[in-house]
């Protein structure tokens, strides 16, 4: 009895399952394959579109320009001000002249993305007209290494640092081409993780040091250190996501910027 029932049961069940699995298998190949062929076309389209858009000039050219990643954008700030606005609040109280700021930071940007952004013509006008350019970049380059295990970490770090240094040098050169007189300010990286992993802190400090070396090679560029500011105040200066600065964190960076630049 058992033998007679089990055979058709097993046979048809496996037949149905195999159909499902084969179609699923084909679907997953399609899902990951279709984009491989589609993407280059899209990329070409978008890159050919860019120069045309480049004629658009932002209506009000402003004094302060903020470039970079989520920290430049102000992610985590409860009042949605960010470094630029907070810095403006500081200096606008000091002298009468009203200044404005433009923020073209894009959260999750890495140094590669910023280089692409600088290259696109649409932002040339805002770079050329700014008096102060605040750049926050590199945090995502470095943070991506979190996925590495200990074996590959050092190697991956060297590789990422090398790429980042190249991008940073290119950025400074490109900004200087467009705008030789502006004051540049580079926001250093802080360590959002409390001192659980000394090895990672060491890498972060090395990263900051290398940034500093490149930044200081330009006369009107300043490096704004944040590591020291945040070190003992992570509870106050980090927002609820425990990664981005809070409002008071941004305030401290803005004050430090004010102290260094003025």
């Amino acid at each position: 009895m058992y033998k007679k029932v089990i055979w058709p049961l097993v046979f048809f069940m496996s037949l149905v399952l195999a159909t499902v699995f084969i179609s699923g298998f084909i679907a997953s190949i399609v899902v990951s394959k279709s984009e491989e062929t589609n993407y280059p076309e899209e990329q070409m389209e978008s890159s050919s579109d860019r120069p045309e858009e480049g004629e658009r000039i932002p209506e009000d050219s402003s004094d302060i320009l903020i470039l970079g990643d989520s920290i430049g954008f102000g992610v985590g700030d409860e009042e949605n001000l960010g470094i630029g606005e907070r810095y403006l609040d500081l200096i606008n109280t000091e002298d009468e002249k009203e200044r404005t700021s433009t923020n073209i930071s894009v959260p999750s940007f890495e140094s590669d993305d910023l280089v692409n952004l600088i290259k696109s013509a649409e932002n040339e006008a805002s770079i050329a007209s700014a008096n102060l350019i605040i750049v926050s970049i590199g945090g995502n380059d470095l943070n991506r290494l979190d996925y590495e295990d200990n074996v590959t970490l050092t190697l991956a770090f060297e590789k990422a640092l090398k790429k980042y240094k190249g991008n940073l040098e290119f950025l400074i050169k490109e900004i200087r081409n467009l705008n030789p007189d502006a004051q540049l300010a580079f926001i250093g990286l802080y360590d959002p993780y409390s001192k659980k992993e000394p090895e990672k802190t060491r890498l972060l400090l090395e990263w900051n040091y290398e940034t500093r070396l490149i930044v200081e090679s330009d006369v009107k560029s300043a490096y704004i250190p944040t590591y020291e500011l945040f070190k003992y105040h992570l509870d106050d200066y980090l927002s609820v996501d425990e990664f981005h600065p809070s409002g008071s964190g941004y305030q401290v960076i803005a004050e430090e910027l004010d102290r260094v630049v003025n």
Partner: protein
Amino acid sequence: MISLTQNEILKILLKKKMLLIVLLLLIFVSLLSYGQKYSYDTTIQKFEAESGGIAYDWKALTTQRLNDLEERSQNEFIPEEVRASMDREIQQLNYFVENDINPITPTAAKFTVQFVEQGITLFIPLLIVILAADLVSNEFSKKTIKILLTRAVPRWKVLLSKYSALIIMTTILVFIVSILSTLVSYLFFQQWGFSEPIVTGFTLIEGELNSSSTILISRFQYTVLIYSLLWFVSIVIASITLMISVIVENSSSAIGILMAALIGGQFLQFFLSEWELVKYFFVTNLDLTRYLTGSYQPIEGMSLNFSILTLSAWAVLSLIVSFAVFNRKDILV
């Protein structure tokens, strides 16, 4: 032919090996889901203790992230591709907020997928090896091969019936894995979570992971995709196991060889970035699911298609070798 296959299936079933595999699965799935539940609870407790007794409020966090994203996608400076991937994240987060589901809660749907992602390189292939390793070698060690081959059936038919039976049982085994891991983890988590949207379809552009062409599918569809990949991997492992089983006349050596290959292959992966040849080893390519998740470190020259082709080549070669060897083998028992 069909009756031969039917006979082979009955042999596998009567050996009670399926029962052993189901038991092993039950033990591991229960342990893992209990562990996940436990670590989830302690994380929440730790979070509450650290924030000074304030109850963990995921909704506030998620809403903050959602507002943040919506505000950002208004920004006209954001490139179109970035905006598209932001919109997908917004959709995803909206689902969580609307349905009042904490994004980090463990659910049965998440667990079944995770179980495959973790198990596809070692645990599930080992189950297949248990199922398949003594398929032919057992006939030798029990000397029943004589009876089998003295029938008026060509040898290749005997082996083919064994292989078909193995494929059928592998298919059913994959199904059992999905059912068991879903049901058992549901007992622990009390959440199905199959309708939750999930992002997939990451692509490699010049060695970097690109999210611009990702699509949003439900977790159920995603689970089917993951299990289909597991099924393919299982078939490949079954074919390789069949070859070893034909060559080696002893079940325990067959299991030993395959275990050594599977575990040794894991170590070989350390050299993957420097040593080209490692990329063509089957163990290196077993982890097909990682190509769908977008959280992997891309290795040059390796994609889903490459892995599938390599695995297929291994399967076809093992089948050719098994049939060739089985046809010519001297039966000295």
